[in-house]
């Protein structure tokens, strides 16, 4: 029993990383932009988020550093890095109307490079070791819920023993869901992603919506990279662990059928699939088999959702296509 609970807790920890990546990409894709640069964006978010927190602590000193402020600075640094990278992507695809797939892949290559460079630069500059004080590490990774909630048998562990980032991600997912289905702006954004010419004819500023969704989405995805570094990786630049997470987030967007609420349980499920090899060992089965599980599940979901041909469960109709009003 305790093994299962431990698996779920670990799944949530890794799932939080995926949830940010996925939510950001859902927002971007809802505007009709397929940003395949998530991998690169999450690298950048990880490196810049860590750098932000580290520099903050260096500036004020370990003793007087505030955990809350460190969290905020890490989030803002990561968000800014992702937003700037996505702004470049947006300029190339929205304004210059270049191919989205190619641009996204280029951003992945660029972003992993920048992230890796920044992370390594930080390490080398500080004499081979970037260390945050334990006090800050704790404020990033420790549970924030009150003790009595955590002490509830079973449920306490499963629901209330997580870091602050998990709850932020869940709130973000719910907020995004409400934005899409309840607000006018959310409806307009969906219209842009479904049929830009319709939205244009209705007087919606397509370019603005696409830019904002892409930039904010990229920023949110980048937070995921930061969360990985400051929680799972223990505040140390670890590119190996972050590698592939962005692609998983892209797969997860499909798995969630572009719905933010699905991202909550989808991320935890994928998180579980990703760490299974550490916790559920079956002899003679190589770990690589476990690691492909998330992708296999995505393919199965895609096959079923395509076969059922439910109009509500399809990607945004104009996903990947650039819009030009005077096109004939």
């Amino acid at each position, binding site marked *: 029993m305790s093994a299962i609970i431990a698996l779920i807790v670990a799944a949530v920890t890794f799932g939080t990383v995926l949830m940010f990546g996925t939510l950001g990409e859902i927002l971007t894709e809802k505007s009709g932009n397929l940003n395949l640069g998530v991998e690169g964006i999450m690298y950048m978010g990880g490196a810049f988020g860590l750098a932000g927190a580290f520099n903050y602590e260096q500036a004020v000193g370990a003793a007087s550093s505030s955990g809350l402020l460190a969290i905020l600075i890490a989030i803002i640094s990561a968000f800014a890095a992702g937003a700037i990278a996505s702004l470049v992507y947006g300029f190339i695809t929205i304004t210059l109307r270049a191919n989205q797939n190619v641009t996204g892949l280029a951003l992945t290559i660029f972003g992993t490079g920048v992230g890796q460079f920044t992370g390594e630069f930080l390490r080398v500059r500080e004499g081979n070791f970037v260390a945050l004080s334990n006090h800050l590490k704790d404020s990033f990774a420790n549970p924030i819920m009150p003790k009595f909630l955590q002490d509830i048998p079973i449920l306490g562990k499963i629901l209330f023993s997580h870091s602050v980032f998990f709850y932020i991600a869940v709130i973000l997912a719910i907020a995004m869901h409400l934005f899409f289905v309840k607000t006018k702006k959310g409806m*307009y954004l969906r219209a842009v992603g479904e*049929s830009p010419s319709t939205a244009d*004819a209705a*007087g*919606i500023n397509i370019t603005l919506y696409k830019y904002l969704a892409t930039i904010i989405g990229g920023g949110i995805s980048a937070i995921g990279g930061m969360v990985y570094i400051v929680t799972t990786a223990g505040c140390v630049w670890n590119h190996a662990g972050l590698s592939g997470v962005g692609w998983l987030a892209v797969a997860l967007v499909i798995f969630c059928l572009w719905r933010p609420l699905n991202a909550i349980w989808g991320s935890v499920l994928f998180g579980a699939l990703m760490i299974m090899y550490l916790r559920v060992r079956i002899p003679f089965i190589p770990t690589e088999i476990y690691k492909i599980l998330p992708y296999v599940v995505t393919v199965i979901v895609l096959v079923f959702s395509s076969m059922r041909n439910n109009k509500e469960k399809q990607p945004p109709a104009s996903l990947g296509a650039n819009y030009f009003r005077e096109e004939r």
Partner: protein
Amino acid sequence: MNTSCAIEMRGITKRFGQVVANDSIDLSIKRGEILSLLGENGSGKTTLMNMLAGIYQPDEGEILQDGLPIAIRSPKDAYDHGIGMIHQHYKLVDVFTAAQNIVLGLNDQKLDLKSINAKVKAICDKYSFVIDPAMKIYDMSVSQKQTVEIVKVLYRGADILILDEPTAVLTPQETDKLFAVLHNMKADGKAVIIITHKLNEVMEISDEVAVLRKGKYIGTVKTSETDPQALTDMMVGHAVVLNIDRPKFEKPVPRLKVQGLTCIDHEGITKLDGVSFTANGGEILGVAGIAGSGQKELLESISGLYPVKEGSVSFIGGDGKAKELVGMTPMQIRKTGVGMAFVPEDRLGMGLVGSMGMTGNMMLRSWRKGKGIFLNKKSPEDLAKKIWDELEVVTPSTSFPVRRMSGGNVQKVLVGREIASQPKILMTAYPVRGLDINTSYTIYNLLTEQKMNGVAVLFVGEDLDVLLELCDRILVLCGGKVSGIVDARSATKEEIGFMMTTLGGKENA
């Protein structure tokens, strides 16, 4: 200035690159009036209206509303001026409900379904529509979608409505309903412009008719003072003598026999309906019709690219034996030895690979011939050189990407390749579209040469003057049905124009 004109367009010119889509057009529409904008496809009707709707910007000319000049820079501007256009391809979000689509982009209102529904209902009652605001667009029929579009435009307070071929996808009953609604709008003092090429509808619905031809404004007449024949004349123009050389082949023999060919597209719309004809070797059979009357489906179903619902297509070989082609893939057709060549309408899409050179494109026809896994480049290279030489293709080399050649040269490459396969049947769709006069004549001569070699040539064209001078017989399509087959040497332009717009014209062949 006559202020009763809701909208006046003066000297509007719009160019797309080299092509002049609208050439100094004047048009005006009054309130409480229905104006039909009539013209063949490609005459610039939709382009002109798109400038009112804010999709395109005119290069020259001005637009006046109630006598005052206005600028329409975006679809939003158009709405602000009370102009609403119902496009041929509906601008609706499939996964939204009717109500969501109707209020899309309206910033001054809350997303309050109750008040929206009430307002929608008021509009529906006023003009006798029926829609369910909570219904999703993807669950709707075409006619229901159109209704949503119209309500959407009215909801925004438009008093100038433009409908682009609104009846093209409607059943006769639905068309009657639509016309009743349009009459209600007219009675309500709205100005309505309807783009169409169906003469009977023009006569039925409109007060005035404006005619465009090849991007030029021909004139406006009162519907009560005209008749379909006069409108056809305005639409197709007077016959122009082209002096295309048309020798007569001595003994035409039946080569292709099509019987009762019926095709239905994936949306369930009948594209071809019981088409029957025989194409003879040594003859150019022209295919005329308003664009979208089934020309594309006809050629594609003969060549095995389009699924056939019913009917037969049989190839009659030199020995007089008939071979059924329906149900075969293009590859199987080729393997059975039926020499068929197809010059598609979409040259760089279906015909050639734009980024390859001439040699590469020749290889598309012959890549199976190489030995083992390697391509045989020698013979396609020779063929490319031959075409380059004989057809005077202007290109720096045989490896120069065809996409970067001019339209005429692209067409020469394509026609040259197809002819080189020594077909028994040569099908061409709009082979001279966008080409200059000289290249057009080169293509005409090539086709005539093939005819004199005993090839059965099918020529789908849009210019009636060319059809009348180049072809031996002309098959006229109207709404997927054969309106008639005429002798090109004796038929008149008016006769064919009338058959294109009215099924049967005179008689069924």
